[in-house]
């Protein structure tokens, strides 16, 4: 028999049973079947124990209450029915808490996610620590699910429909101050006062003197108080959700359904309906894709070469532009000492001033305290020389995309630094081996390809060459993870992986424009497909000149395969249309806050004039998306990619490939290799060889194999 006190320990203090949750051997607590079973037995014994006046539930972890449900539980079940049943089991145990005959108080410190939040909602009284690590959320929607343990039922009942919907629909955090204000928390205390406050609260509840105050505003109460205006609230929420998700994320709509059902049919039926909807969502391809993405990201946090990592304390970033400053910012934030170098001290200081402003806005939003801002800034040193670069552990260059320039920088840096300094290039397309050609220490050279804006974009693509040393790769990986990035490692080649699959996608957009498509239609159609940003807006973000440079680097490769390439990016860049950076690209960017960009109709003169024609959405979507998907398969075939999983992570996190589709490879698995292959062949016969399916894809189509088991 299993030791019953495996996860839970119980102490008695002043008549209150203090139940401490502590998953042995893990950093965080998770809701597992084992815990549910143990919890149930514990509830029985505490309820019967006459010495126990009340219960206080706490976590034994440093900065975690409960990280959520163990997603492994979902994996073990296949059908919607089985998963709905799992939700019902959860409901039973939480109802047990809700109906517990004695006061049941919970004290939350650290992150409290998903099922943890739902458990807290079932308790009679919630105390929250005011620590910065304390965050409460129902992030199920991000996995294409709904909170299936009463979250859609109890949160609206506690804090109101209008206050709860944003949390349910976005999965965003409730911080302690907000928790106090919106009524989630009955009390907020400092972390070391949680136990004492919990014991007092349990005693107060046992004495029957507690009445919770409704913290909704008068307007909220009025609107939520009757069926007619409630219907309005839900209609409005559906409208907004649909506008944002374009119908690609069914979970959000089902969350609204679930909340509304309760208000129409009551709590008992509402709970049963929540389980049913949970089961439906859990087997949806969208949720499967998002859960896999989550696993992929979690997996990528583990450095496979951890034992080869060498310590990095100092990082030099060469080039203090948008990219360089961004890399410096995320590095200093993690405690690295950073030297931000540019050709002149002024430029370097300007880059730092930009970081200063970003941090200042964090201070204004109370995400960062002023002293921590100063400390981060003080870790960033500006310079215009390579003096003392022998002391730098990692040099990341983010200068202009010019092979000769980069080579000369390698020489200069390696003249100052020894064989213990890593040289990383943040090039977006130049092959790393070419940058490393003629270098003194080619084994120390690696690609670290960040995405702009670095502070927000979650991907780091690391490019290794045959000469890159293991410790160099391991260390770069480690730095990337510390900077908060999801890291993929790819082999060297023109454009590596992400730029390589982006280039034909962008090329196809240009060809469509040449054929007469309108910017508006391209944008809206691809957003409908699920890209967060339209391809043309992305072009402007990346920079049309950069796009032109990329097609120059990759053009030969594509033309060799008989692909038609557009020369429009170079023409536009030549004419001074650079994109967002100079306010003039496919869009015009009026200066001033709140002013929106608008399509720059002047560029149509490069694409056959102002008169545009309509394409079917299917044509645009298949041409654009399959271009990217097929190129991704080619990257795997040519062993640029080491795995399909890396390919999916890279496309979603770096390029905005629709997450609910799971990435190019999961998309092929979902559609079937044969069907993707024949769609490509159709396009090939109509538009030429650039659509010729990759051999690997053809093989898979005939063998019926998939990329994932």
């Amino acid at each position: 028999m299993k030791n019953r006190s495996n996860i839970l320990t119980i102490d008695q203090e002043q008549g209150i049973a203090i139940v401490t949750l502590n998953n042995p051997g893990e950093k965080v607590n998770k809701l597992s079947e084992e815990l549910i079973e143990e919890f149930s037995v514990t509830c029985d014994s505490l309820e019967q124990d006459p010495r126990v006046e009340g219960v206080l539930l706490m976590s034994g972890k440093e900065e975690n209450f409960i990280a959520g449900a163990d997603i492994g539980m979902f994996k073990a079940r296949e059908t919607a029915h089985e998963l709905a049943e799992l939700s019902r089991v959860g409901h039973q145990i939480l109802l047990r808490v809700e109906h517990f005959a004695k006061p049941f108080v919970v004290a939350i410190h650290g992150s409290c996610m998903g099922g943890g939040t739902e458990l807290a909602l079932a308790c009679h009284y919630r105390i929250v620590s005011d620590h910065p690590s304390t965050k409460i959320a129902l992030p199920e929607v991000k996995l294409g699910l709904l909170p299936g343990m009463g979250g859609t039922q109890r949160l609206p009942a506690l804090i109101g429909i209008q206050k709860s919907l944003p949390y349910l629909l976005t999965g965003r955090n409730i911080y302690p101050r907000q928790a106090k204000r919106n009524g989630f928390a009955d009390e907020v205390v400092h972390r070391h006062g949680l136990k004492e406050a919990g014991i007092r609260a349990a005693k107060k509840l046992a004495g029957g003197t507690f009445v919770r105050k409704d913290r909704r505003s008068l307007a909220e109460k009025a609107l939520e108080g009757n069926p007619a205006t409630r219907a309005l609230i839900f209609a409005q929420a559906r409208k907004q959700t649909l506008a944002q998700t374009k119908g690609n994320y069914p979970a959000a709509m089902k969350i609204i359904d679930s909340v509304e059902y309760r208000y129409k049919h009551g709590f008992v039926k509402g709970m049963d309906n929540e389980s049913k909807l949970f089961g439906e969502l859990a087997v949806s391809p969208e949720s499967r894709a998002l859960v896999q993405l989550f696993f992929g990201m979690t997996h990528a946090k583990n450095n496979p070469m951890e034992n080869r990592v060498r310590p990095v304390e100092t990082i030099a970033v060469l080039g203090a532009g948008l990219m360089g400053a961004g890399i410096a910012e995320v590095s200093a934030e993690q405690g690295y000492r950073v030297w931000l170098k540019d050709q002149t001290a002024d430029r370097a200081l300007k880059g730092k001033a930009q970081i200063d402003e970003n941090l200042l806005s964090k201070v204004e939003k109370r995400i960062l305290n002023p002293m921590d801002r100063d400390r981060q800034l003080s870790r960033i040193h500006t310079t215009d020389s390579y003096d003392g670069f022998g002391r730098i552990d990692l040099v990341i260059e983010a200068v202009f995309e010019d092979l000769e320039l980069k080579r000369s920088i390698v020489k200069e840096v390696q003249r100052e630094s020894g064989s213990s300094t890593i040289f990383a290039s943040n090039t977006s397309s130049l092959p790393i081996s070419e940058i490393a050609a003629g270098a003194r220490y080619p084994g120390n050279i690696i690609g670290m390809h960040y995405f702009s804006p670095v502070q927000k974009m979650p991907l780091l693509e690391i490019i290794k060459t045959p000469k890159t040393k293991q410790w160099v790769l391991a260390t770069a990986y480690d730095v990337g993870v510390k900077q908060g990035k999801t890291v993929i490692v790819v082999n060297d080649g023109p454009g590596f992986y992400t730029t390589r699959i982006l280039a034909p996608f962008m090329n196809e957009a240009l060809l469509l424009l040449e054929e007469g498509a309108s910017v508006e239609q391209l944008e809206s159609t691809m957003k409908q497909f699920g890209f967060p940003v339209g391809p043309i807006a992305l072009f402007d973000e990346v920079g049309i000149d950069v796009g032109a440079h990329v097609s120059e680097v990759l053009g030969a490769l594509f033309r060799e395969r008989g692909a038609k390439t557009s020369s429009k990016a170079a023409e536009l860049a030549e004419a001074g249309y650079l994109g967002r950076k100079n306010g003039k690209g496919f869009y015009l960017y009026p200066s001033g806050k709140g002013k929106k960009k608008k399509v720059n109709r002047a560029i149509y003169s490069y694409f056959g004039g102002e008169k545009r024609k309509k394409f079917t959405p299917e044509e645009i979507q298949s041409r654009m998306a399959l271009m990217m998907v097929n190129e991704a398969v080619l990257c795997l075939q040519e062993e640029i990619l080491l795995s399909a999983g890396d390919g999916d992570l890279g496309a979603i996190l770096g390029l905005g490939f629709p997450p609910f589709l799971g990435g190019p490879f999961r998309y092929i698995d979902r559609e079937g290799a044969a069907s993707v292959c024949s769609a490509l062949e159709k396009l090939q016969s109509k538009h030429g060889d650039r659509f010729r399916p990759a051999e690997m894809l053809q093989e898979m189509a005939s063998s019926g194999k998939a990329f994932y088991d």
Partner: protein
Amino acid sequence: MMMKRNTLKEAVFVDGVRTPFLRSQTDFKEFSAYNLGRLAIAGLLSRTKADPALVEHTWFGNVIQDINTSNIAREAALGGGLPGHTPATTVSMACISSNMALTSAVNAISLGQISGAVAGGVEVMSDIPIRFRKSFRQKLLETQRYRKPSDWLQFFRGISPSDLLPEIPSISEFSTGETMGQSCDKMASKYGASRQEQDAYALRSHQLAAKAAEEGLFDREVIPVSVNGGSAIIASDNGVRADSSLEKLASLKPAFIRPHGTVTAGNASFLTDGASAALIMEREAALEAGFKPKAIVRGFTYVARTPGVDLLMGPALAVPLLLDRLRLTLKEIDVFEFHEAFAGQMVSVLNALDSREFAKKELNRPIKVGEIPIGKLNTRGGSLSIGHPFAATGIRLVTTAANRLLDENARYALIAACAAGGQGHAMILERFDA
């Protein structure tokens, strides 16, 4: 086991930096002393690329203190990127505060207590604390005891409108009530520093500072500071008047003693904002960390006299004391860096050192200390032209002296400074590899 006994260690000056020194109410007027101080420390770490963990204590000077950062050393060190576990002490000794910061570091290193320290100082004279008068402050504090709204009625009892006028701190000697300018003016008369000599000395200071800046000699010690969200970058001092002339200086009216005084706005140092910081380490620790130190601190002394006419004569007392102690003579010194509070004070000190009468009366010795060769003194300007942010000046003097030792391939540098309260300081550096 035997108890470990320490022998004295050698302290070296690794390097020093300063922010530009700016006239008050110019580009640094938005800065607090904390902010400018932290920039100096961060700038030092940036220049030296020193691992902050090497710093085991911070001493930082500050004279005009902000009550919110009363131990400004601690706040500036934290904000400047030094580890949270490094202790920090604020030092206040008027114009020689950062000299005291530096020698405190040297002492601790010599005794083997620590092997690395930051010494520095900051003054933001654009941001002097202006208080309510005592009577009004008292009233405000009484309100803490008020319980009910009607108690506020007594607040206005006994207050006159003049109580609401702010109290602006003056730069006068607490013990004598005299401003420093007045004292200096009297001192100049006593030691025979004429108005012409003072103006000529001031002109020399401005011209030499302008020349040094022109030649880029300050680039090594000045760290650029970005202001107004990076819209402007300040990389040089703004108090140096390269275009000054004897005629212009002669046309200025006496500022303190009218009508016959000799100290004017043109031959006195001006209100300045600035900060400085230096890395001081134990010799072996510095070498082990891969540094090439600039100088070794050979010795220092502090002196004081009851404040009076000789208020700013400290250097004339400290220099002979230190030279004797180290068995050095003026002839062996190649680099002189003296703090220029006033041209009148400088001329007085130089005259006194070169005076047998002064030697007999004040130093109790039969022969004069000697003439300081003007060609070796403050050859890159001084406080009169570069500016004088009280607590930041000491590290500026030492940094410039160390850089001059290297540039001039010289061996010994003598640093001296006067301070309010009738105090003074002198220090000898030796070039590291001399």
